[in-house]
């Protein structure tokens, strides 16, 4: 049985991202062999068919390619994830400043942010990560793997990097995901 096919079966059966280590345990093969098979499988699927292997939230998962999104969306009628400007701001503050307390979020934004924070907690985009060792021991918050998944990120390292542009304004750079790299490689090969 081809390792690539075994990996494809594992990815198909999984409802959430699976790490290469877990797949290696399942197929009883070294991790590097699984990683090589994942790369080969990713190339194979990228060239043919409606599916792709995506690297998300610290693992790998099968997903439909974007050109098939309209038809799938008409079938599934997914509820769009609506994030207000306030929620996006709180999410960005938590993502870039974590672990952070509610009071610190409020200080950065200049307004009470508890409502938006609660909405983000309910949507599992933000979670409690512990308590700070300061008087009152306030709760600290950080982002979740759900956040990585819903924002197309493999890890927090993939968050857009902020840099100062030539005109002195702030710019967001990246992220360059493994999928982007693969697309660039395939474009170059063509």
């Amino acid at each position, binding site marked *: 049985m081809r390792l690539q096919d075994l990996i494809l079966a594992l990815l*198909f059966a*999984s*409802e*959430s*991202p699976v790490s290469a280590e877990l797949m290696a345990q399942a197929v009883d093969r070294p991790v590097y062999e699984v990683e090589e098979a994942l790369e080969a499988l990713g190339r194979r699927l990228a060239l043919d068919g409606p599916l792709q292997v*995506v690297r*998300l*939230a610290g693992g790998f*998962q*099968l*997903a*439909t390619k*974007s050109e*098939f*999104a309209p038809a799938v*969306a008409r079938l599934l009628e*997914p509820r*769009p*994830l609506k994030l*207000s*400007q*306030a929620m*996006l*701001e709180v*999410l*960005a*503050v938590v*993502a*870039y*400043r974590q672990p952070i307390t*509610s009071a*610190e979020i409020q*200080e*950065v*934004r*200049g*307004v*009470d*942010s*508890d*409502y*938006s924070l609660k909405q983000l907690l309910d949507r599992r985009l933000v979670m409690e990560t512990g308590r700070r060792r300061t*008087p*009152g*021991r*306030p*709760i600290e918050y950080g982002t979740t*793997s*759900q956040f990585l*998944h*819903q*924002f*197309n990120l493999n890890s927090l390292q993939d*968050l*857009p990097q*902020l840099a100062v542009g030539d005109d002195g304004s*702030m*710019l*967001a750079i990246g*992220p360059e995901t493994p999928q982007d790299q693969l697309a660039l490689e395939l474009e170059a090969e063509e």
Partner: protein
Amino acid sequence: MPRPEKSTEAALPGGGSTGQIPDLLFECDAFSGSLSTLFLLARDGRVDLLGVPLAPLCEAYFRHILESEGKDIEGCAGALAALAYLLERKSFHALPRTEVEEDEPDRDTDLDFGPGLSLPELQPAIEALRELRQEAEGRFFRSPEAQEGYLLPLDIGEVQPADLARAFARLLAKASPEPPELTSAPRRSLAEQMREVLAALRSEPVSLVDLLPVGFTKTDAVWWFLALLELIRLGQARAVLAEDDVLFSRGGDA
């Protein structure tokens, strides 16, 4: 669980003192510590009182005062003074303010937070996150949510979750008011509750209301219902539909 720890004295703003406060440990999302610590932090504006539920704290101290039967008048007076101050501060903070959060709030955009990123500096990142989210919407997965795992649904014959929910709602409607919580009440465990429920179950099916002891509270109802669900999952209890009610009996594995 609040419990007496020590006594502390704190100065009220504008002079005066709370006297010796017998401290009970208090824990919630926004604060963890004693009444005197909470008092000092509130006085210095270092805790958001809106996130601290004061009612349970007041109840715990009122019980403590009643139980002390006047043996520590100064301590009780100190606690009451501190609680009154906290209630007044919280009431003040609860008043409507001009900076109510909206989708596009007015704010001072020059705010900077120490060495970290300020909100204007984060604006490109916010836009980038918005674009990432839009890109992600073009992909579909077998499961739209990155769940840690999932549980296979339990097959309990013709009884549907909605039937169980209705039975539970009927039970809650008949529950008695909760008695005051005892500070020395032992912790309850689901395992013990399951033993109690198993002992009460008979081979002939009975309704939830008949199963629970007379005068049960809402807390009792929740514990009994959770224990029943777990027993059903383990095959030690059985649920059957009878007209519009669900009846429970011992299962084959009990």
